[in-house]
Every structure is written in structure tokens, then in C-alpha cells.
């Protein structure tokens, strides 16, 4: 189970709304390499892991991704909160506004709603952990693109940099978990049988 903490993992205070940036950043909320996909991927894959370390790392990183989901939602909310429809439309969010107003909806920057097809659960620890390593790199790359696009607002840049850094740390931990699983699977197994009479 989870407990909600009424505080963000990293502080966000965007002083100037900017719907144009929200249109891009929403992708890390509900896009293919976003935080919703990340949390559901890890929290679903953990059930099929063979050792304590990989179960723990998927559980704990999956939990941190939920905190990141809240952070990205917060950025989008603060970038659009209180902005009038005319400005929203001029900044390129007219289509989004039609369906969602200034609510925060899990979709990719291109407009596609969040889709479970963007994650995989193979029930095979090696395949799943390899997917997680790739997912962290894709999320890191996405944050770097967003950092390029948001270069003129330090209030947005700061939390994006934090989120990018976390992807790098998660990649490292998944690599260690993968090595542990590979070692476990490569262990020689010995079976004893009393009829073998091997004194």
C-alpha cells in the first residue's frame, strides 16, 4: 500500500504561466516515456522478479516515479493555471483546451492519450530489466529535449534538471539489479538424491 505525503519530492514554484511549454511537458505525464508509464511498468513487473534485490528496486523506483508524476502534473498545472482561453489558443493549446480545459490529462505531446502499449511486462526478469534500462534512457533523452525547449524559464528548468538526474540514477540501480539476476540465473544447481550412494 501507499501513504500520501503532502509535499513534493522537489519544490516547484513557477511564477509566470506559459501554456506553450505545458504542451510539450505533458508528454512526461502521459506520453510513451513519461512518469505514468514508468510507474506502472515497474510496479507491474515487480511481481515477476526472482530475487529480493530486483523486487525491491522495482517497488521503490516505481514508487518514486509516482512522486515524479505528481511533479510533472504540478509543472503543467502551474504553467496553465488561470490563463485565459485566448492566450491558451494563441500558444497552441486550443485543441487540448477543447477536450480538457486546463485540467491535467495523461497524454503525449502529440495528443495521444496514455496507452498501456507503451509499456511491457514480459514475465521474464532479464527482458523486463533490459526494458527498464532502455526506458530510463528514453526518459532521460526526453527531459533533455524538454530542457532545450524550456531554456528561457529557470523555474521550469530547475525541476526538469532534477527529474533528468533521477533517470540516470535509476538506470544505474537497474543495471545493478540486472547483474544480480544474471548471477542468480547462472548459479550452478546441485541436486542430491539418496539413491545415488555418493559417499
Amino acid at each position: 500500500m501507499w501513504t500520501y505525503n503532502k509535499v513534493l519530492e522537489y519544490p516547484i514554484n513557477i511564477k509566470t504561466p506559459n501554456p506553450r511549454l505545458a504542451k510539450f511537458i505533458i508528454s512526461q505525464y502521459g506520453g510513451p516515456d513519461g512518469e505514468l508509464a514508468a510507474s506502472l511498468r515497474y510496479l507491474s513487473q515487480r511481481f515477476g522478479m526472482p530475487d529480493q534485490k530486483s523486487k525491491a528496486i522495482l517497488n521503490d523506483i516505481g514508487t518514486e516515479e509516482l512522486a515524479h508524476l505528481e511533479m510533472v502534473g504540478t509543472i503543467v498545472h502551474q504553467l496553465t493555471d488561470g490563463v485565459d482561453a485566448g492566450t491558451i489558443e494563441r500558444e497552441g493549446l486550443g485543441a487540448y483546451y477543447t477536450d480538457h480545459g486546463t485540467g491535467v490529462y495523461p497524454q503525449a505531446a502529440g495528443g495521444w492519450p496514455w496507452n498501456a502499449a507503451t509499456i511491457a511486462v514480459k514475465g521474464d526478469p532479464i527482458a523486463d530489466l533490459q526494458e527498464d534500462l532502455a526506458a530510463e534512457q528514453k526518459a532521460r533523452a526526453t527531459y533533455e529535449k524538454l530542457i532545450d525547449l524550456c531554456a528561457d524559464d529557470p523555474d521550469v528548468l530547475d525541476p526538469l534538471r532534477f527529474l533528468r538526474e533521477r533517470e540516470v540514477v535509476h538506470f544505474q540501480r537497474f543495471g545493478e539489479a540486472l547483474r544480480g539476476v544474471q548471477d542468480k540465473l547462472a548459479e550452478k544447481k546441485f541436486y542430491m538424491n539418496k539413491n545415488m550412494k555418493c559417499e
Partner: protein
Amino acid sequence: MIDNKDCKCEEVKCEENRNECKDNKREEMIEKIKCLNFAVIELGLYLDTHPDDQRALCLHREYTKNLKNLKDMYQKVYGPLSIYFPCNKWRWLEEPWPWERGNF
């Protein structure tokens, strides 16, 4: 308002005078809480794959203890950070939510 005069629970006062703690004190406290909270998250992930690292384990003990003490102090004055903090009044609704810059 629904009264419950038969409640056998101990009253928990958590509405200490906010003015006693000036607002820069509040900022300082929540900043420290966020730092410790992050350090515990990071150490937790590290310990998942390095459970025998005694130095990390020692830091984890230190930070979780400091975090607990600091959160208890903060919540007593400024209201709960989770629903697991007891109070004689339901203060969960008072503070703005994190996306509205609550406990910022």
C-alpha cells in the same frame, strides 16, 4: 457537527500558536524535511542493490531519525504531512496542496 462525548482517545493538541514559529522558521524546516526526505529515498534505492554497505546504512539510520523528529515538530505547528499524524482537529484540509505551493 457530530459530537462524540464517549471518545476514549487521548486529546492530541496540534494547534500550537503559529506566531511562535515565524515564517522563515517554517521555510527552513520544510526545506530541511525535503532534503532529508530525498536523502532517505536515494539511500533506499542504493541500499536495495548494496544491502551490506555499512556506511550507507549508518547514514540511513541517522537521516530517518532526524527526519522523523523534524516532521513531528513541523506537523505539530503547521498541520499534518500525512493522514497518520494525530490531531484533535481535522487539519488535512487547511494547507494548500503541493501543486498549489502548499508546504513549499
